[in-house]
C-alpha cells in the first residue's frame, strides 16, 4: 500500500498486521506506541514510591494493583508496537534503559511524597485518559484494541487518585496547604502534558493524516481543562494565577502558552533534564542489576526440552 492510499483509507481501526503498510506509517506508529509503552513503565517508577507511602492498607493494595496494571499496559503496548515489524520489544526496552527511549514529560520528575499521588493518579492519569479515549479510534487496530483494556483500567486509577485527593483536601489545614503547594508545582507540568500548540509539534501532521492520532493537542488540553478545573476546584484547590488561562469565544478554556517553560519541556523531550537523568539512570541501573537473570533464562530456554515453559 502506498502512502496516498493509506491517507485515503485512514480511519478508526482501519489497518492491521495483515496490511502491507509503508515504512513511514509503520515507523510513525512505532514511535507513538513505544512512547506510550515507555510512559507506562516510567509512570510505574513514580507510583511505586506511593505504594510504600500509602497511609492505609486498602490504599496500599489499590496502589500495588495500579502499578501492576501499568506493567500490564506496557506489555500490551509493546506487543502492539512489535506487530508493526520495526522494533522488537527487547530493542524498545533497551532503548528505554539507555536513554534513547522517550516518555511523557510528567514522568521525568521524581516524586517523594504521598501528596504527589493525586498529581499523578488523578491529574496526569486523567489527562492520559483524555488522550487514550481518542486513541480507541486510531488507525492501527492492535493499538486501538490495547486502548480498550487500558481505558477500562485507567478509569479505576483516576477514581483511586480522586479519592486520595478528596481525602487529603478533607484533612487538617496543614495537609490542605501542603496539597495546594504540591499542586502549584505540578500544575504547569500537567498543562504541558499535552505538548505544545499544534503548529509546533514535530510529528503531529503526519500522525493525523494517517489516522494514528485523532485529536489535536489543543483539543485534548481543552477537553482536560473543561473537565478537571471544576474537579480541582470542587475539592478546594485553587488554580494558580500563572500560567494564565482564558476563555475562548466558544466558552472553552485555553492556556497562555508563553507562561509555560518550554525550554524545560524540550530539554525533557530530549531526555536531558536533571530528573530525566535520574529516572532513566534508575531504570538502567535496575535493569543492569538483573541482567544475570535474563542471561540465566536464555541459557535455560536454549537448553530446555521440547516443551519450553516460561517462568513468570
Amino acid at each position: 500500500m502506498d502512502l496516498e492510499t493509506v491517507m485515503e483509507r485512514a480511519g478508526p481501526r482501519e489497518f492491521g498486521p495483515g496490511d502491507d503498510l509503508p515504512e513511514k506509517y509503520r515507523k510513525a506508529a512505532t514511535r507513538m506506541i513505544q512512547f506510550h509503552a515507555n510512559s507506562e513503565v516510567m509512570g510505574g517508577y513514580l507510583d511505586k514510591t506511593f505504594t510504600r507511602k500509602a497511609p492505609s492498607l486498602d490504599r496500599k493494595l489499590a496502589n500495588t494493583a495500579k502499578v501492576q496494571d501499568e506493567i500490564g499496559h506496557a506489555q500490551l503496548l509493546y506487543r502492539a508496537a512489535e506487530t508493526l515489524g520495526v522494533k522488537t520489544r527487547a530493542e524498545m526496552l533497551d532503548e528505554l534503559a539507555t536513554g534513547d527511549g522517550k516518555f511523557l514529560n510528567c514522568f521525568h520528575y521524581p516524586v517523594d511524597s504521598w501528596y504527589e499521588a493525586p498529581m499523578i493518579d488523578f491529574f496526569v492519569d486523567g489527562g492520559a485518559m483524555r488522550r487514550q479515549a481518542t486513541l480507541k479510534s486510531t488507525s492501527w487496530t492492535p493499538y486501538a484494541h490495547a486502548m480498550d483494556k487500558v481505558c477500562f483500567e485507567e478509569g479505576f486509577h483516576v477514581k483511586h487518585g480522586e479519592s486520595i485527593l478528596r481525602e487529603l483536601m478533607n484533612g487538617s489545614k496543614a495537609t490542605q496547604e501542603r496539597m495546594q503547594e504540591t499542586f502549584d508545582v505540578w500544575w504547569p507540568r500537567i498543562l504541558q502534558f499535552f505538548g505544545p500548540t499544534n503548529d509546533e509539534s514535530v510529528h503531529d501532521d503526519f500522525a493525523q493524516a494517517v489516522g494514528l492520532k485523532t485529536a489535536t493537542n489543543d483539543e485534548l488540553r481543552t477537553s482536560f481543562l473543561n473537565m478537571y478545573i471544576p474537579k480541582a476546584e470542587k475539592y478546594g484547590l485553587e488554580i494558580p494565577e500563572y500560567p494564565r488561562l482564558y476563555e475562548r469565544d466558544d466558552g472553552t478554556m485555553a492556556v497562555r502558552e508563553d507562561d509555560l517553560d518550554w525550554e524545560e519541556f524540550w530539554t525533557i523531550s530530549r531526555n536531558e533534564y536533571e530528573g530525566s537523568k535520574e529516572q532513566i539512570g534508575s531504570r538502567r541501573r535496575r535493569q543492569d542489576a538483573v541482567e544475570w537473570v535474563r542471561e540465566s533464562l536464555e541459557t535455560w530456554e536454549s537448553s530446555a526440552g521440547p516443551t519450553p515453559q516460561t517462568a513468570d
Partner: protein
Amino acid sequence: MSETPRSDAIDRRELSAEQQAAVEELLFRLADDEFVHAERLTEWQIYAPTLESDLAIANIAQDEFGHARLWYDLLKQLGYTEPECLWERDPTEWTHSLLVERPFDAGDWGDAVLRGYLYDAAERIRLEAVADTSYAPLADRVGKALEEEAYHREHATNWLERLTADDDGRARMQDALDELFPAALSLFDPGPREDDIVAFGFRTESLAAMRTEWLETIGPALEALGLDVPDPDQVARPNGRGRYGTHTDAWHDLYDEFTATYREVDFETPAQLRATEE
C-alpha cells in the same frame, strides 16, 4: 481441610481472656509475616528482570497483602483498629519472622525467589495447621489463602529450576540460601503463648512438628537442584527473635518508611475502600 466446623468450635464471643490472648498472638504472627513479606516484595515492582516476572511478583505481593488483611480483619473483630494493628503499633511489638524483614540487595532476584520459596513452603504448612482450627472465624478464611499459595509455590519452583540451571546461577542461589536459611528458621520460633495456641486447638500442629515438615519439604527439593542446605542445628542465628518483637535494624528503617505518611497526615481513620465486615 474440613468443610464443616469442628464440634468444639469456639466463636469469638465465647473466648476466655487467655484464649483471646492466644488467638491474638496466632493472628498477629500470621498477619505480620504476610504484611512485611508483601511490603518487601513490592520493592521489586518495576525492578524485576522482565515484564512478566514483574507482573508475577506484584501479583504475589498483592495476594500476601490480601492475606494480611484477612488476618488483621479477624483482629479487628476482636476489637483492634487498623492503626492499632499497623500504623501506630510499636515496631518492637511486631511478631513477623526475621526472614521477611530483610532488605533486598539491588538485583538480587535470587533472594526474592528463594525467600519466596522458603516462605511459601512454610506458609502452606502453617495454613494447613490452622485449617482445622477450633477458632471458627479463622477456619472460614483459610481455604482462599491456601489456594493462592499453591500458585506462589509453583512460581518459586519454576524460577528455582531456571536459576540453578547453570553454575553462575547456582552459586548465587547457594549464597542466597546460606544467607536466608538462618533467618527462615525464625518462622518456627515460638512466641510467649505458644503452648496455649496448641492447647486450645487454635493450631493443630506444634511449631516443632511444622519445622520438621518444612525441613523435610525444602531439604530434598533444594538438594535435588544442586544446593547444600545448611544444618539447622549448626547455623548461627541472626540477632533478634522476630516472634518476640526483637528485630534487625532493617525492620526499623522499613517501619519508619511505611508509616511516615500516616504519621504526617494524621487522618482520623485510615481509608477503607471496601465494605467493612462485622
